[in-house]
């Protein structure tokens, strides 16, 4: 009985050293440490290609986007994150056409599920790779994605 008691104590110390040996190994092999020193590594930090941070609307150099205002993304969104306000615009040839007035994106409601991107028929929106979104006021998370004065790109219907 007493022998078992001391045996257990010995085994406990032994297993403690087995664990400590492993810790010691990593303590002396600094190359195997895999932690990243965020935010000090901001300059070199690269997010994955498909990382989903926020919905963005790419514009070209002439301040043109590809959004036709079809509202497919608005229907596809499970949370009511996207609201598209359209307007009637008179084109150069006198025809009236539907164009977007503002593409409102509520970032605070967004779960980044990618369903709007998949639903978009004209590749107007995509996922941005930024991830530092914290702000002091919730209102700042309501974003208008089309830039002021932007137009629909030629040839996108």
């Amino acid at each position, binding site marked *: 009985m007493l022998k078992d008691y001391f045996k*257990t104590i010995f*085994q*406990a110390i*032994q*297993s*403690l050293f*087995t*664990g400590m040996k*492993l*810790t010691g190994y990593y303590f002396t092999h600094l190359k195997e440490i*895999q932690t990243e020193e965020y935010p000090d590594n901001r300059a070199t930090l690269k997010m*994955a*290609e*498909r*990382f*989903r941070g926020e919905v963005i609307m790419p514009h070209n150099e002439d301040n043109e986007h590809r959004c036709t205002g079809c509202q497919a993304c608005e229907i*596809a*969104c*499970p949370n009511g994150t996207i609201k598209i306000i359209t307007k009637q615009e008179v084109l150069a040839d006198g025809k009236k056409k539907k164009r977007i007035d503002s593409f409102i994106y509520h970032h605070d409601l967004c*779960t*980044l*599920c*990618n*369903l709007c991107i*998949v639903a978009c028929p004209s590749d107007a929106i995509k*996922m941005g790779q930024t991830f530092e979104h914290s702000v002091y006021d919730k209102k700042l998370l309501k974003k208008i994605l089309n830039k002021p004065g932007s137009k629909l790109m030629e040839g996108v219907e």
Partner: protein
Amino acid sequence: MNLLGEDIVNENGEFVINMGPQHPSTHGVLHLKIWLQGETILRVQPHLGYIHRSIEKMSESLSYRNFIFATSRMDYLSAHINNLACALCVEQGLEVEVPERAKVIRLLMAELTRLSSHQLWWGSTGLDLGAVTPFFHAFREREGILEVIEETCGARLTQNYMVPGGVMMDLHPDFQRKTKAILKQVKEKISEYHELLSGNIIFQQRTQGVGYISPEDAVSFGMTGPCARASGVSCDVRKWYPYSGYEGVQFDEILETGGDCYARYQVRMKEMMQSVSIIEQLIDSIPEGEIQAKTKNVLKLPKGEFYQKVETARGELGVYIVSDGAASPYRVKYRSPNFSNLSAMSHMAKGAKIGDLVAIMATMDLIIPDIDR
């Protein structure tokens, strides 16, 4: 008197305390009311509802394409598998044939998720029982797996990668190479896991013989997953009701007979190796072809009831959809594994010491958002 206005020692001389909802070892907002006689637990009563988000009711107003994303927030550590269950259930109603490539990708993702989930469980179990180092070791391998998942799916935890008819995006070109690298690493490091924790005498004495549940009780409480398999109940949905191509891969259902915390620990450790072997079988033979079956723009399930069950990292997840023929489900019900497993906790903890309750909770691997939904 406590905050609820009850006497701390009740009329039978029992000491009543509350553990949680802010207790660090409950992994979330689980609130346990514990009746004690000295240090011995008489009974445990879980109080639920702290993280209820009404996912089932919410799904009734969403279309069949949209309601899947919410299941990632139930059992967030096996989000892929939850999404898979929903997608399979919708496909069952639509009667679409999923392309072979999509099936294999789904299986790979499901097993990677299971692996990462078990690794997080291993780390947090160590942490709950007083060992801090395992947590960092577990997160190192889990990070590698999450990077692989992130590269293909675009998100680490709530991926929403499964869509009715297939998967959302094709695999990343680096997927195979990186998966093989991480599998090699996992296989090497699992021996370190055993060295660090499984062989530790203190850990063994805190888990062996603690929280015993007999196979009969496990069945009658409706326990599934590794918790039931540790009692010797064969209940792996992947074996009994194969779905999404599990019939084509070779793997063993891990069964232990101990029924205690240590047996539950062993089951999960061995399941990790099984997941590795499943991924290894599939990784070199991903068929080429489509990743999504052609489906209509607006999905409508025929009138009727559809049920699909899958094996998540914690047990059997059932998705039950009642359809009235409209574009959104009439009723959705999730049979979540953690809810049933939790019901056995009072039985397991009876007669144990209060310190053992943490060991029981840790090895049951409870995810609280899955209990409340």
